[in-house]
């Protein structure tokens, strides 16, 4: 165990953890939004993320960019990032909507029990990730080096890179926007109404299916952004990347309090940081062990997560 190393590198480990955590947090929002409104764990959300990642890669591929390309000029990079984000958001949003229409809505219409939704959720997730596996021959795809890591802040042994700044700032902007949307707009109020009391929401004239579609779309949008940040950070994508990261993102949502948007932010950032500390202290192979020990520990004392459930707020 290397506690000295942790103390020595506390700054860099925290910053790297926050960047990783920002991705978890954005990813986690999709789980938490859908859960808040439908009391459903959308396991296929991991593939919503995956489709975003591949969409960005494919758009960059159109410009004949791959992992061996040179980093283009800054103006071009900004344009490519924008295009990648748009493509990822569209792909993720569309995937989320299709999953809801195909895997969940028909069951809702027939008043299916919760277990049926759980199975179609897992089914939809497997279908998309395995189909991607077949299509990509289960191989790893490299990401063009759009952003050459460079330090923008140096302070002692603390180096903050341009990519870390981009990831954290973009994530915070997206979260702030989502938070404002949910809390101040008419549609946002409709979402909260369905989360808090679906029958009453219908009596107020809220179209429940439209709210549900909107929630899937918003979750997809966030996952699309998370996917672009992820591929830039990790540099590769594989068909099971969504599953791998999705487990942690889902954990972040539960840790913060599933159904609670700010909980997803807190849970995501916390998990990213703790994972990084744990990797330093116990070794990389222990990081998931520590993450889940933390989750179980927190749930024993705070069964509804760190911030509790707020979107639904004690459903009457």
């Amino acid at each position: 165990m290397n506690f000295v190393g942790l103390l020595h590198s506390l700054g860099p480990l925290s910053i790297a953890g926050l960047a990783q955590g920002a991705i978890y947090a954005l990813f986690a929002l999709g789980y938490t939004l859908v859960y808040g409104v439908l009391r459903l764990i959308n396991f296929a959300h991991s593939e919503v993320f995956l489709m975003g990642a591949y969409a960005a890669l494919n758009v960059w591929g159109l410009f004949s960019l791959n992992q061996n390309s040179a980093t283009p000029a800054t103006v071009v990079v900004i344009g490519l990032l924008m295009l990648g984000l748009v493509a990822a958001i569209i792909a993720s949003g569309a995937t989320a909507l299709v999953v809801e229409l195909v895997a969940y809505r028909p069951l809702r219409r027939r008043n299916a029990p919760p277990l049926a939704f759980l199975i179609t959720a897992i089914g939809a997730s497997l279908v998309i990730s395995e189909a991607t596996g077949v299509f990509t021959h289960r191989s790893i795809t490299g990401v063009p080096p759009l952003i050459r890591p460079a330090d923008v802040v140096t302070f002692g042994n603390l180096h903050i890179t341009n990519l870390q700044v981009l990831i954290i700032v973009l994530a915070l902007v997206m979260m702030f926007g989502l938070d404002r949307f949910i809390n101040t707009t008419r549609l946002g109020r409709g979402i909260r109404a369905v989360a808090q009391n679906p029958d009453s929401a219908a009596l107020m004239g809220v179209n429940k299916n439209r709210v549900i579609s909107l929630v899937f779309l918003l979750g997809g949008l966030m996952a699309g952004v998370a996917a672009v940040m992820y591929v830039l950070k990790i540099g590769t994508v594989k068909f099971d990347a969504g599953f791998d990261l999705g487990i942690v993102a889902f954990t972040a949502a539960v840790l913060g309090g599933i159904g609670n948007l700010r909980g997803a932010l807190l849970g995501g950032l916390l998990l990213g940081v703790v994972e990084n500390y744990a990797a330093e202290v116990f070794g990389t192979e222990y990081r998931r062990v520590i993450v889940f020990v933390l989750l179980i520990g927190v749930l024993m004392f705070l069964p509804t997560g760190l911030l509790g459930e707020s979107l639904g707020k004690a459903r009457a």
Partner: protein
Amino acid sequence: MLLEIDNITLLYGRIQALHGISLEVDQGEIVALIGANGAGKTTTMRAVSGLRPIASGAIRFAGQDITRMRPDLRVVRGISQSPEGRGIFPGMTVLENLEMGAYTRRDGAAIRQDLDRVFGLFPRLRERMRQPGGTLSGGEQQMLAVGRALMSRPKLMLLDEPSMGLAPMLIQQIFSIITEINQQGTTILLVEQNAQQALSRAHRAYVLETGQIVKSGTGSELLHDPAVKDAYLGVA
């Protein structure tokens, strides 16, 4: 007729909750639906709002068949409901709850007028405007539910047990407000356990027993009907 319920039946799984209910509400009326627990009063209300699909029969509103219409579109046509148990959004403030009542409307200025009207009827709600709905007392929540149902400017307002759990003085108050709302032009279909109050305020009433209508008449007719007195008014 503003509302016509034509021989509807409704099933909860294999249990039949409504066995062919027919009733009518005319423009400008207060119509009461009384009956014991489990008679099907709330189920009838849910069917009119479209929260529960009916198995057979028809529901017409303002001459239009709404039997299969989505609940949100029924609100747009002019049906609102203050549901059993009040159905407050606990995490929203009183003001947000009232704004939810106007969810289908886009006429901002008129919405503000209606807010003032609701605050005029229930001054207590203005005091509690910024407080989450979940922190209100039962009586305040009831006022909020009724006020919220007004915010869509309904043609027909469904009130399910507006006196439930209220102190006697508040019961009086809520019924006079219901009468006032009616006199201002809103038609009302009212479900009540408090048959005494309901029958004395209603123009007409129906008595429900085990999913069927067993009696109907004007409010005062039923108020003086020996069988109704015996079963629902607690006096022989």
